[in-house]
């Protein structure tokens, strides 16, 4: 099953490599990885998605918790949560397709953030599924470049991951 694990960790050099290293060292998958400092500059927030059965996920969270730099973590998929992946996608947009691309972008509530004579760059945020559907909907369009931030996630309601 796909899981979203959110980690609060010390904003120290080497901390990220310890997390990433753990995954390759123990043969766990990382599907996506997103990391940035928080409002507290001494802390980084890392969100990663991984796939595994309950046993595997339990080991992953235990091993992550064991890392000295990891302050706290939560498996967001255990409860109600919001996940957002941000995509920037550059497509060839010429002739009749120009309108077509614009329409599809609107349907998905994306924005065209850069316009060239023959290309559009579209920004789209949402769940990973939504982004996948958008890419699928662009099947007839010449996709030039895709960049995704990886999932960032947060719990719904009162629940917070903080110190």
């Amino acid at each position, binding site marked *: 099953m796909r899981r979203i694990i959110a980690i609060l960790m010390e904003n120290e050099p080497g901390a990220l490599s310890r997390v990433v290293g753990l995954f390759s060292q123990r043969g766990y998958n990382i599907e996506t990885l997103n990391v940035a400092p928080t409002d507290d500059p001494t802390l980084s927030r890392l969100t990663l998605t991984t796939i595994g059965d309950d046993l595997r996920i339990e080991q992953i969270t235990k*091993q992550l918790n064991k890392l000295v730099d990891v302050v706290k973590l939560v498996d967001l998929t255990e409860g109600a949560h919001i996940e957002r992946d941000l995509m920037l996608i550059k497509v060839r947009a010429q002739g009749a397709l120009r309108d077509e691309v614009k329409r599809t972008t609107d349907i998905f509530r994306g924005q065209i953030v850069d316009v060239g004579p023959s290309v559009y760059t579209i920004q789209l945020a949402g769940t990973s599924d939504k982004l996948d559907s958008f890419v699928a909907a662009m099947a007839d369009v010449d996709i030039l470049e895709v960049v995704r931030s990886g999932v960032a996630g947060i719990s719904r309601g009162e629940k917070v991951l903080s110190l």
Partner: protein
Amino acid sequence: MELLSGGEMIARALEDEGVEYIFGYPGGAVLHIYDALFKDCKVPHILVRHEQAATHAADGYARATGKPGVVLVTSGPGATNAITGIATAYMDSIPMVVISGQVASHLIGEDAFQETDMAGISRPIVKHSFMVRRAQDLPITIKKAFYIAASGRPGPVVIDIPKDVTRPDEKFEYQYPQSVKMRSYSPAQRGHTGQIKKAAKMLLAAKRPVIYAGGGVVQGEGSELLTRLARELNYPVTNTLMGLGGFPASDRQFLGMLGMHGFYEANMAMHHSDCILAVGARFDDRVTNTVAKFCPGAKVIHIDVDPASISKTVMADIPIVGPVRSVLTEMLSQIAALREKDADLPDRAALERWWRQIDEWRAAHGLWHGRRYADSDMIMPQQVIESLYRVTKGDAYVTSDVGQHQMFAAQYYRFDQPRRWINSGGLGTMGFGLPAAIGVKLAFPDREVACVTGEGSIQMNIQELSTCTQYSTPVKIINLRNNYLGMVKQWQDMQYGGRYAMSTYEDSLPDFIKLAEAYGHVGMQVTQLADLDAAMEEAFALRDRLVFLDVFVDRKEHVYPMHIAPNGSMKDMWLSKNERT
């Protein structure tokens, strides 16, 4: 407040931390530190002959004393040479602090002379690591390193220090912190009371219980409590290779070691058990054989300070996360309370039947219940360990290398106390034995220290004979000489049709007697069983001399029992070359 340079801070911090020995080797990146040690440091430094040996010696010291071993090496090759020893300590959860020099800050990343990314290289084999960027951070970093290394599930911690951070001409205020608190690190202090209560109930309801105790009992100083628990309940105990000595081997309730080369009665009892109390053990693949077939009828209670060790390979029915001492203390009182309410717990009749069954297993194939090795006109390797046991009255510190000799030592030396059996169980590092013995001997100069080894292993760190000369560490090296990489040969006999690919040395073995003498030690050779005890006595009678006892043993002997793999269970064992369960 006092002003010290970075180098001086390190020297002083090691004093303030109460360090007894530094094991190390100098080089460019650590010369400021060495100069500071030379000028003013009460902590003696042991100069090894190879950085790997520094880590093993510090490791041996740590295993014997329970205190972190301390290592100091230079950057680049010094640091990489230390890696095997760090990994060895990591796999067996041994507290260690390794200070490695690094090239000067402005050179980092430029492929400078003797630059290597020590934090990166060591990352998967350390509990944690630090790179110190400013001299002012040294005291707190060193304090944290010792705290992390020794607390919770212990392990090695690396502190990588660029050369400029230790320069003598820049001084800063020094104060060594009394304690540290880290928001991101707080090892469990006690187990969950509800879980412990549930476990006590399950344990008392057992009809065929086994206590399976590992290295965590030794490292966590839980031996006495575990022994009390076992004796109060009259439950059988087996130890892992790492746990030997955690329960007295000469106790009637001891089943011997379990696992791949474990005792028949221990493996049989595990397989047929209905309740396993695992304490500070991690269900390693060398213990379980095929996990899917592991102990089919058993409920598992698992106590460990590291939650990640629990339900990693074998699911625990009752997991208990906590330090062994506090958990066992609480468990003992829970058990007492339950038995006060119901005096018939545990089921005595069932237990009696269980012990009868165990005694039958023992009588049939127990290594300590009848002679289990063949006759030979050569000395049998088992007899050497028996002789060592007799001569040292079971009271020596025994280090070992890796191979058949290690297994024979584990099987035939009956360890009655924790921290006496010092071996690389997790990583299986040949070359561990001699340097580890140096560390042990320095920690306990008045005790007998024996290194049981083989010709293959001893040659992996033989240069340390020179260290022994320099620091007068009169350990006894007991070489079980079978002229093969014996354990490799055993596998080749059993699985590769006796094709000895690279497991023989032809005629290239050195004359170990002369070699020992070349370093100023005593060398002795034994080829006849009749001479064995006398030679062993003589070796230990030479109290102040290192003796290299080269014992020619039967060349064909295998280690048995041996788990049948792949696809075997705990109870599937070879008992001799042609006898299996």
